[in-house]
């Protein structure tokens, strides 16, 4: 995407983010100030790498989905050449929204206002009543294709886009979160995941950062999810135990994870991350995994399970679900959740769909309550005293490890601190340009 106007300075550029984001606390206004939201959309979403879609959603030429990055409406489409393009959903004539469907297949997008047509790779095809311009149709065509994201990259099937063109290399951005995608993909005996089971979309009246903070919070389950553990089934691990072997990790770059691997390995049990089902429920999956990896490696993979990793600023690998968010305004965020179908593992995938509905989404046994917490948080944050939101838990328990700053205290706010330190860098860099 091209340029912003030189004079496009925002009121929130003048704010001192070094002061509002301290080592162990952040200022409440960061969640409620509409000017700050505008700056976040410009300096984070529209300047950095952002997850937009998964290749399995648009596998065939012509397939597309409609998404947003920050305030920019997008079409993410697979071209005839099988190349994925991320285009701005705005007719280059007078700005009409070009594509209205959430998803579909089209070789051509036709603008409903005056009938201009664009091929699904963004090139202007036809201008109705073309005689009205000084330029030739050829000239118009070469000038008036759809605007495109400056960079598009994929890793493990996840499509990321960067509108500005100066976010650097995708793998560098993914950094220590890259192997979380590998860890997820290796759950499939065919080496791939598929998100074609669709998304549940959940409307949250909360700031996008609140929604993210809840996702990687290791401190809340006993309180927020008490009703599930008491009335339905015990938690997968004993959250009340101080012996719980969970690592909360700031992976750098705003990415973070809550890593249960050590606990699972100590218990040496398969599928703790999937309601502890016995192998006999998914014999085809076991067989396919063992054919690929052999029995020992399969056992290890089924013990370790999938990642629980947040990829800044909007993607969350939530074990057997993929979640992402679209911030709509300072007080409103859409949260998307899709079950992961594991290629080559049909019965396992069918179970994952049912598990997803049980736990996640607007009616889920877990997420409905997480969303409630996010919305109450948003209301509470409007109170101006005390000014600060505390993220100081567990400093003493942190160690610097090769994968990132790690705390073995499950209640440590290491993940949130990681997000906020990165946020501060992004919000400060652009201000001082």
């Amino acid at each position, binding site marked *: 995407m091209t340029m912003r106007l030189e004079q496009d300075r925002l009121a929130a550029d003048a704010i001192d983010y070094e002061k509002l984001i301290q080592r162990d606390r952040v200022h409440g206004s960061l969640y409620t100030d509409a000017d700050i939201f505008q700056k976040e959309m410009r300096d984070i979403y529209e300047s950095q790498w952002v997850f937009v879609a998964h290749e399995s959603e648009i596998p065939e030429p012509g397939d597309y989905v409609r998404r947003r990055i920050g305030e920019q409406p997008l079409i993410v489409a697979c071209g005839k050449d099988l190349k994925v393009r991320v285009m701005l959903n705005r007719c280059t004539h007078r700005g009409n929204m070009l594509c209205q469907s959430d998803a579909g297949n089209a070789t051509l997008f036709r603008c409903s206002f005056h009938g201009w047509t664009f091929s699904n790779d963004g090139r202007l095809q036809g201008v109705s009543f073309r005689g009205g311009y000084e330029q030739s149709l050829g000239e118009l065509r070469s000038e008036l294709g759809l605007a495109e994201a400056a960079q598009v990259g994929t890793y493990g099937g996840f499509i990321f886009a960067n509108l500005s063109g100066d976010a650097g290399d995708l793998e560098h951005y993914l950094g220590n979160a890259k192997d979380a995608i590998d860890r997820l993909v290796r759950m499939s005996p065919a080496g791939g995941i598929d998100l074609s089971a669709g998304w549940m979309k959940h409307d949250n009246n909360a700031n996008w950062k609140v929604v993210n903070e809840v996702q990687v919070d290791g401190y809340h389950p006993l309180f927020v999810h008490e009703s599930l553990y008491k009335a339905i089934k015990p938690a997968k691990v004993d959250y009340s135990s101080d012996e719980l072997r969970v690592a909360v990790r700031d992976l750098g770059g705003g990415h973070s994870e809550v890593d249960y691997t050590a606990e699972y390995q100590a218990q040496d049990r398969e599928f703790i991350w999937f309601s502890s089902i016995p192998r006999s429920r998914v014999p085809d999956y076991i067989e396919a995994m063992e054919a690929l990896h052999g029995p020992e490696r399969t056992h290890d993979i089924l013990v370790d399970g999938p990642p629980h990793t947040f990829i800044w600023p909007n993607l969350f690998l939530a074990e057997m679900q993929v979640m992402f968010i679209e911030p709509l305004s300072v007080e409103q965020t859409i*949260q998307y959740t899709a079950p992961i179908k594991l290629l080559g593992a049909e019965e396992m995938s069918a179970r994952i769909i049912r598990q997803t509905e049980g736990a996640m989404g607007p009616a889920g046994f877990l997420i409905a309550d997480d969303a409630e917490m996010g919305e109450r948080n948003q209301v509470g944050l409007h109170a101006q005293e005390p000014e600060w939101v505390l993220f100081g838990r567990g400093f003493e328990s942190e160690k610097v490890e090769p994968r990132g700053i790690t705390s073995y205290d499950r209640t440590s706010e290491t993940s949130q601190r990681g997000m906020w330190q990165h946020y501060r860098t992004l919000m400060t860099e652009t201000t001082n340009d």
Partner: protein
Amino acid sequence: MTEIQSIATPAGSVSAELVDFVVHEARLADENRYAEWESLWADDGIYWVPTGDQKDPQTQVSFVFDNRHRIGSRIAQLRSGRRHSQTPPSKMRRQLSNFEVLSDDGGEVELAANFSLFEHRYTTTIWAGRYLYRLRYTADGLSLVKKTVLLINNESAIRTIAFIL
């Protein structure tokens, strides 16, 4: 939505017994009378709230696809007193109308109705759509075998639905 379209043509008259049953079901849902609502269900009951373009609940995700066991879990969670997303519970009133019997083989009957639901929790939310019921005639009266909730906004992002739709 193959399954849904295939039962879209009216096939009989709507008896008072059928209307009474679904109106009663609606009242129990409105008033959060969880145990009584749960007792309406047959052992093979399915409570389904599809997402927008969903064709097949076996291969695509729904907002809710509860078998009888999971209906029980949902109610147990609501009754725990710690279901934050229903603490306080929603206050609700819903209207049913446009009843149609879609099929009736003497053992089971498929009934459709439009609904509008006013839900108040902090603010008032309006829900609307179509209910599809499959009801079974038993010696003890009707029991609920399937309830499908086709929300008009099921393609969009929806608010939390921790209450009984």
